[in-house]
């Protein structure tokens, strides 16, 4: 990696600008995303800023399951973002469809329409988890060869209690 490449990667890690997009969440995850950019958590110390337009943003933060109605809009927003861009799925719904999986109006997780770089499960996600997820995503930019972190599972469900049969 040349010095210029290193500098560019460093700047990308240090200045992630996010765009928040609700793809059909129940609103709890949105509230948590908004909570995580309040002065209490002060994400600006990582250089993270909330932007209003996809043209300025680097990271698309999606919350909620992918509804059939929002799909074309999500793809359009994604295509409006300038390269390089990353997508973070916030909440169990965004990761897999969650409790809404199998509904007539749901296609599944965000990754059924656009590529996703980081999954942050939780229902709703805690602001700490969102910040942790974004920081891990940025860390993986710096060390692309490193193996992905193994998820820490708290209270794993019993084998017999399969979630979706």
């Amino acid at each position, binding site marked *: 990696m040349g010095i210029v490449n290193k500098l560019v990667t460093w*700047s990308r890690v240090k200045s992630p600008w996010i765009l928040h997009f609700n793809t059909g969440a129940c609103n709890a995850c949105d509230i948590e995303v908004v909570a995580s950019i309040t*002065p209490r958590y002060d994400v*600006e*110390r990582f250089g993270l800023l909330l932007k*209003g337009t996809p*043209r300025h943003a680097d990271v698309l933060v999606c919350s909620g399951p992918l509804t059939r109605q929002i799909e074309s809009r999500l793809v359009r927003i994604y295509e409006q973002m*300038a390269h390089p861009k990353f997508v973070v799925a916030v909440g169990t719904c965004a990761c897999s469809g969650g409790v809404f999986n199998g509904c007539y109006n749901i296609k599944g997780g965000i990754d059924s329409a656009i590529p996703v770089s980081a999954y942050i499960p939780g229902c709703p996600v805690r602001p700490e988890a969102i910040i942790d997820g974004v920081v891990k995503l940025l860390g993986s930019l710096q060390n692309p060869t490193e193996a992905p972190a193994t998820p820490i599972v708290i209270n794993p469900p019993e084998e017999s209690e399969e979630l979706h049969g």
Partner: protein
Amino acid sequence: MSVSLFEMIVFPGFIFLGVMGMLFEYLDRIVYARLQNRKGPPWFQPFADFIKMGSKEDIIPREADSGMFVLSPLLAVTAVVVSAFYIPMWGGKALFSFFGDAVVVIYLLTIPTVAYFFAGWYSTSLYSTVGAVRTLTQLFAYEVPLFLVILAPGILANTWSLSGMAEFYSQNPLLCVTNVVGFMVAIVALQGKLERTPFDIPEAKTEIVGGTFTEYSGRLLAFLKLTHSVKTVVVAALVSAVFLPFGVEIGGVLGFAIFIVKIAVIVCILSAFKAALARIRIEQMVDFCWRYVAPAAIFQLLISMVLGALTGCGV
């Protein structure tokens, strides 16, 4: 009166102003963060933002007028850098000065605003068009008071050259007191010029997405943001040259330090306003400017004229 390439590009031209602009952007952000009881971004944040934006993809919308879309940011940054040459910063004189350069500087500092308008207008996106129109509407509200109060001190100093004004007031520091009203008007108008809260109406991101710059990305956006930071420094330097000319004749490192302190004071005042106030609507802004700020500016003009007549040092 020729300018060398070095002066134009490195010092005190483009690169120097760019670095200064970013450092003061950092100061602004950290003061804002501290006022909100936050830790705030690290010092290299504006630089990282700039490099990141510069390394991203440039998108020019198909609908947009690609010529004007690319030209507007360059026009804005050029006008700001050129106007800096006429403003006395330290060591007494500006790089250039002639009788009446105050008028030229004010006009040059209007060009970025007009360039922002073009940038928004030729993006042809709905949001940027609304932002562009708001930029111009706002211009008509703050520009007249700013013009009046920048020129008012010139009446006493009997010159419309910025270097001349700075020299006159640093020799008669007591007369600065008569310009307090003008200073306050200038601070209010500055917030309109720099599109800062409470006058950040053209880029209100909760209403019109990104405002004027909605469609910009990559290098062009980096240039627009850089223009913004440089404009902050240049306009603050203008106000400090006219209203706070203390120690402007001192050159060297000490003069530079005094200059930095003066700009920092103005930027801190602006950050405090940003933290304390919320955005107002465009018609409230125009109303406020014409009803209170413009009369205050005329009042300042009257003070200067009466004083000039009494002391006989004016025209």
